[in-house]
């Protein structure tokens, strides 16, 4: 969480005397969904190709996990790409396409994946697996991996220990008595047949050990014929499942539809377990409907895999909906970088405002199944995967809003501003104080009243809580506490009862309470009057501001502020109710009645909708 995975420093790229990228600085966190957004020719694809290693740069450095990779050729970088035109190998079927990397790459990471899978299958704990994985990562030559694994399993195999022991005993047999040997072996295994001869005894011992020795079993599996192919098959099947194309293994690539090719391209990349997945406008070749559903799927995939995604697009709606961080680019320079809402609400310059402004972003509430309320009106929407009363934000593209007559329109507004560009009028309409952007072929006049309408499929909904939670998940050291939602927009945590803006949880539900460190305000003159009171444990200057750790009722809070305080000082903290975020906690951690109530609520909603 919050660990930097890729750092781009002062990158400059000039091609034919034209500056493509200039002074490009960016750091990307682990497990983040980053989008490069900008018009064509802004350098976003070049930047992606530099990261992948297909393009060189004149100046700058590229650090992956702290290691300089700008001199490495593409095949030596643990980064995979989903290409705009998919680039599936036409001579191979779906299975062979996905297996291509595993079979031919220079890392030969099939044995390590296989060994780790085996260990999981035989119930070896995660700690040991992690440790082994780290050791494998240090091996330089891929051919040594198998050798290393063999030694590793052999060293831990009781069978091999016993065999070695018996062999050593065979040498010394003349000098020792049989009973000595038996006594020693009895310590290792229990044997019923006390009358067995030495040879029989030896066989029984070895058989008994080999039957119960999981390391020996894994060793045999590792060296069995076809182990590599079996691992490849397992991995390919897994990745096909992830992209929802199970059973397509033997299909010819040319028989697939655009959407399916897209999925195969993703599966082919992620099967190699890259550190970073690059996606070069992968949705641009799909039709609108498919594009919209793929957005959600991609986001979901990223969450499941926990891989950093860098996504390139010129479609601002796409960027807004999927990303944790949006990097707006123009003419090879980063214009603004931040969370989607930040960029939407506080564009730093005219370019960002103009480019982002193509979509209308509105906050709303999911009022009932396939219905949602925003701008004080209820609208039909096609989204159906929300719970009633979820806070959502709604995106409607400028081009998707039509003008109608005032009488029949749900929304009526006054034209504030009209701009003409490229044969189209770009119009700002004021609807009850909210600015709605539309475009029109006909000329419209400032001050006129018009009605606005849009159809359900063009309204795009995204959960507000979830997005915020996803954003916070990327935040370095957020304050996360277990709390209980008390109902009526109150939550209890750390022995405090606080108001929150969230309404979607059930009374009694366990939630994660998240507060960003910079959202706290210090109350220094009269700490007793503040909502939260605590003692300062430690302060650190970060270069910009101070990190202050405060002990509150025995628990530690991280606060960030521009002013410093003394260690040991009792300070008060205040926080606004809309800065207390609640995140869902999985069902298994909830009290039973909450789980039951949740299921019932869902069933009721579906039943009502069917009526």
């Amino acid at each position, binding site marked *: 969480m919050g660990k930097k995975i890729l750092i781009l420093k002062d990158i400059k790229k000039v091609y034919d005397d034209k500056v493509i990228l200039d002074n490009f600085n960016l750091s990307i966190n682990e497990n983040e969904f980053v989008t490069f957004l900008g018009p064509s020719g802004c350098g976003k694809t070049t930047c992606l190709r530099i990261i*992948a*290693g*297909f393009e060189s740069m004149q100046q700058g450095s590229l650090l992956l996990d702290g290691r300089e990779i700008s001199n490495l*050729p*593409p*095949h*030596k970088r643990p*980064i*995979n*790409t989903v*290409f705009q*035109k998919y*680039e*599936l*190998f*036409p*001579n*191979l079927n779906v299975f*062979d396409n996905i297996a*291509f*990397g595993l079979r*031919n*790459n*220079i*890392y030969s990471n099939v044995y390590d994946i296989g060994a780790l899978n085996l260990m999981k299958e035989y119930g070896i704990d995660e700690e040991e697996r992690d440790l082994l994985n780290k050791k494998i990562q240090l091996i330089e030559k891929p051919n040594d991996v198998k050798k290393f694994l063999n030694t590793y399993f052999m060293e831990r195999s009781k069978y091999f220990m016993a065999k070695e022991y018996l062999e050593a005993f065979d040498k010394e047999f003349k000098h020792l008595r049989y009973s000595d040997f038996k006594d020693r072996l009895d310590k290792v295994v229990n044997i019923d047949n006390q009358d067995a001869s030495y040879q029989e005894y030896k066989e029984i011992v070895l058989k008994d050990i080999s039957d119960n020795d999981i390391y020996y079993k894994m060793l045999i599996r590792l060296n069995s014929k076809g182990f590599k192919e079996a691992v490849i098959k397992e991995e390919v099947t897994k990745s096909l499942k992830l992209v929802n194309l199970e059973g397509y293994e033997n299909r010819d690539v040319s028989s697939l539809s655009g959407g399916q090719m897209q999925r195969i391209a993703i599966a*082919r*990349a992620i099967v*190699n377990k890259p550190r970073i997945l690059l996606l070069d406008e992968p949705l641009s070749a799909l039709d609108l409907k498919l594009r919209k559903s793929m957005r959600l799927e991609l986001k979901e995939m990223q969450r499941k895999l926990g891989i950093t995604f860098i996504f390139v697009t010129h479609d601002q709606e796409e960027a807004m909906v999927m990303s944790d961080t949006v990097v707006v680019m123009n003419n090879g320079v980063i214009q603004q970088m931040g969370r989607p809402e930040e960029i939407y609400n506080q564009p730093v310059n005219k370019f960002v405002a103009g480019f982002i402004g193509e979509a209308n972003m509105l906050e709303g509430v999911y009022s009932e199944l396939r219905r949602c309320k925003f701008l004080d009106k209820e609208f039909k929407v096609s989204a159906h995967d929300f719970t009633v009363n979820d806070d959502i934000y709604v995106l409607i593209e400028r081009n998707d809003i039509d003008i109608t007559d005032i009488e029949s329109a749900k929304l009526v507004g006054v034209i504030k501003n009209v701009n003409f560009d490229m044969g189209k009028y770009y119009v700002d309409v004021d609807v009850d104080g909210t600015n709605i952007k539309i475009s029109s072929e006909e000329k419209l006049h400032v001050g006129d009243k018009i009605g606005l309408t849009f159809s359900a499929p063009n309204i795009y909904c995204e959960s507000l809580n979830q997005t915020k939670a996803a954003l916070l998940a990327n935040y370095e050291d957020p304050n996360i506490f277990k709390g209980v939602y008390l109902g009526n927009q109150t939550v209890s945590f750390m022995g405090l009862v606080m108001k929150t803006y969230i309404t979607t949880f059930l009374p009694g539900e366990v939630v994660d309470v998240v507060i960003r460190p910079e959202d706290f305000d210090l109350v220094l003159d009269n700490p007793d009057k503040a909502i939260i009171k605590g003692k300062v444990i430690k302060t650190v200057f970060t270069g910009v501001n101070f990190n202050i750790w405060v002990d509150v009722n025995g628990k530690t809070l991280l606060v960030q502020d521009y002013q410093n305080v003394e260690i040991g000082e009792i300070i008060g903290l205040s926080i606004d109710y809309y800065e207390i975020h609640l995140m869902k906690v999985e069902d298994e951690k909830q009290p039973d009645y909450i789980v039951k109530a949740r299921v019932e609520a869902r069933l009721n909603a579906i039943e009502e909708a069917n009526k």
Partner: protein
Amino acid sequence: MNRFKGFAIPYFIWLIVLAFLPIVVMIAFTFLSMNGSSLEGASFSFEAYNRLIDPSIAKLIWNSLIVAFWTVFFCVLIGYPCAYFVSFSKLKNKLLILLLLILPMWSNSMLRIVSWLRLFTSKYFVGFNLAGSMEAVIFVSVTTYLPFMIFPIYTILEKLDRGLIEASNDLGVPKFKTFLKVTLPLSISGVYSGIIMVFLPAATGFAISQTIGLGKIRLIGNLLQSVFEKNNYNFGSLISVLVSLVITLVILLFSKFNKEKKPC
């Protein structure tokens, strides 16, 4: 499409008059004992078939296949890299470069063959005196037929999506392995058509073996030529049919092998 069906008619007439009928006539000739190509006084006979027993004919066919094999082999060896490097170079006018590479082929082929003979027999090039040897015949065959190998390969390579090579590199596969696993399997069809285009003329030609071979190297083409020169249409037809059969057989074998070999 059906509206344009009529355009195929001339070719059908061409096919029947100039390909199908001659083959029928040729097969018929093999059973006739006659004087030249005149049908006057012709009689039914198996005389030509009796002459086939002569082991020298099998030897001639074998020689032709050997020459054709080595010609194809060296053409692939030289032609593929040539097509590859021109196609993958960053040169602006690649086709022109390719045409310049085969500049000697712009002159008349007979002229070139005779020039090679002059070089092979020149007193200034001692040690290069290969005239009359199998090697020289193969060498001149390669120089003559190389363009037929380069061009189909070049065309296929030009059509190859460079993004696939990037995709392979991106998946962790180094350059040479990418060539083996992506570029080669996807351009092999160009090699196959090149092989057929070189094999056919190399196996049946007679000019090169006659001129460069100084009459010492005799291929099946030379036999055909001399038989027809002696106006023996009966035996000539039979040899022609035989050569066609052998070549068809070789190509069938080749395409069978071609299909069985699955790219991986």
